[in-house]
């Protein structure tokens, strides 16, 4: 089986995540879709790591996970704040930044 298969799968998951980001209105779901995209990227990194026979890809994936964790922490805090002030977690409700 070729490593390309893993990459194709990752591309598919990434695209699905992207579509979710664009389509869903619930900020938390949007966030989850972002996580899905990150995981898809991780899958490619790990597949490439195996393909090249060294562990640098895995280290990269590890860093991606840590950054994703940090992002989740801050992002969820922002969502909670948003919900407190607007009583809604919809990204369409936070549309004040317009002309």
């Amino acid at each position, binding site marked *: 089986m070729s490593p390309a298969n893993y990459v194709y799968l990752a591309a598919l998951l990434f695209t699905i995540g*992207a579509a979710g*980001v*664009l*389509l869903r*209105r619930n900020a938390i779901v949007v966030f989850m879709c972002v996580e899905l995209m990150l995981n898809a990227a991780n899958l490619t990194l790990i597949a490439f790591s195996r393909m090249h026979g060294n562990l640098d890809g895995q280290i990269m994936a590890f860093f991606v996970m840590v950054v994703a964790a940090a992002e989740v922490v801050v992002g969820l805090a922002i969502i909670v704040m948003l919900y407190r002030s607007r009583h809604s977690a919809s*990204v*369409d409700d*936070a*549309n*004040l*930044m*317009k*002309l």
Partner: protein
Amino acid sequence: MESLIGVLVGAPLLGAAVLLCGGKALDRAGHWLGTLLAAASFVVGAVLFFGMLGRAGDDRAMHSHLWSWIPVDGFRADVAFQLDQLSMTFVLLITGVGTLIHVYSIGYMEHDERRRRFFGYLNLFLAAMLLLVLADNFLLLYVGWEGVGLASYLLIGFWQHKPSAATAAKKAFLVNRVGDAGLAIAIFLMFTTFGSFAFAPVLANAGDASEGKLTAIGLMLLLAACGKSAQVPLQSWLGDAMEGPTPVSALIHAATMVTAGVYLITRSGAIFNGAPDAQLAVVVVGAVTLLFGAIVGCAKDDIKKALAGSTMSQIGYMILAAGLGPVGYAFAIMHLVTHGFFKAGLFLGAGSVMHGMNDEVDMRRYGGLRKYMPVTFVTFGLGYLAIIGFPGLSGFFSKDQIIEAAFGKGGTQGWILGGVALLGAAITAYYMTRVMIMTFFGEERWRTERTPSPDRPDVEPAASVRGEHAEPHPHESPGVMTIPMIVLAIGSVAAGAVFKLGDSFVNWLEPVTQFEHGHPPVSATVVTTATIVALVIGVGAAWLQYGRRPVPAVAPRGNLLTRAARRDLLQDDFNHAVLVTGGTHLTRSLVYTDNKVVDGAVNGTAAAFGGLSGRLRRVQNGFARTYAVSMFGGAAVLIAATLLMRAV
């Protein structure tokens, strides 16, 4: 010695700064400070003069470089002074007469609460005028030129509470702008032609430039001279400028500033020498103004305006002489200096009369004043004799020379110019005699009532009838005013003879202006005789009209020429009809064009962009998901581009 040149300008400039910025604390002593600094400038000028006399004729010019003003590559403007014989003459005239008039003003402006400011302006004028004549390049000269214009504006409008004074100041300023533009263009042309505007390179290389360029520069300089010296066609401001205090009229609008045009033409003589057409224009302007001013002077009842017409006419003489080239430069300057003496004296005399007559300026309200104001009468009389060219007095020598030089122009031109100059001399004698008789002789007319008659509705009621003042009690002015008048009278008597003696003045100026003898078609004796005859005719005519018969307190209607002359020979009407009306129409059409075409285009463009923006604005709808779509779209486009590049 050179460093003293800066002091000449610096002293009055310091005075102006201190007096204008000093505040009320200086109210009590400010006039003394101003006078002292003017006198200091005169003393420095005298010291420099005697130092100059001690050197040989060709070695007398001094240069003083203060600092580089605009040092740019290929363009160099310095604040540098050049003191040669021509400048020296002016320095002595300006500081000498200026100091006298400062002293006079102490008395004249005694009751004016803004006297400190007045002296500040006078000092400012002195500084600017000295800068004008001391500059060693045309750009610095231009600074002085504008400076005197500013001082003139401020002083004409000194009594700005009078609408007439404010208007006159504005008029003088605006008319002067036209001339100033001419000077600016002349300087531009000089820079493009000679690559410099310092006197030395410009005048030295004037012979190398094409005649066309020299003519252009000369005509522009002439325009500048016309503006500053009140020559036709820019003469209309001088009469109105008499709204200023009389010392100002004496200093600025008779003795010094208005002669700046003569200085400019004499200074740039090398340019005019190479441009006969420009010279001809100068001569024509001078001749026309000579007659113009004289005729206006005959008709005015306002003593200062009559004298203003006379000033115009006398400067016409100077311009005429300057236009004759090296034959006439020295005579122009000589007449300028003698005129500075006697005209300043005449104005101060007029001021003294007004001072004693409750500021009445109408000569028809004077008469028989010689009993009341003996000193004024004598000094004014001496000035009068000098200006009409009474043999032996200063005006006789200087004017006679100019008439002679005019005849010496040769050919038909020479006859015409000489004839005009002679005619001018006769008219000068006429109007000055008229002023003299109406003021100091005849019956006392200030007591007679005068009201506007149906015949002359434009007659203003006399000041006493207007109830503004009590009936005047003519009296002699205080010593602080009469002493300058006496000094100037001495000058106007003696200056001509001193200058003429052994051609000392001509020899003095020769290194700067060159000199060649004219070749009049008739001998000098004939010209002199003709001048004296013209003088006698003029005086006789005036005596017949005003001396033999009583002068009516209300001016008669007069013939067409008199009425026109009363209106400054319709100069203002002409200006109004041609310039103001034409300008108004031009402006209206421009406004229309601006509104419809320019604004239309601009507003149309703006509206188009506004509409476009209004549509583009909707892209910014504030929804994060819309932005996310554009982000992903952009990413997709980038990937597509990358793939395309790889494929290609």
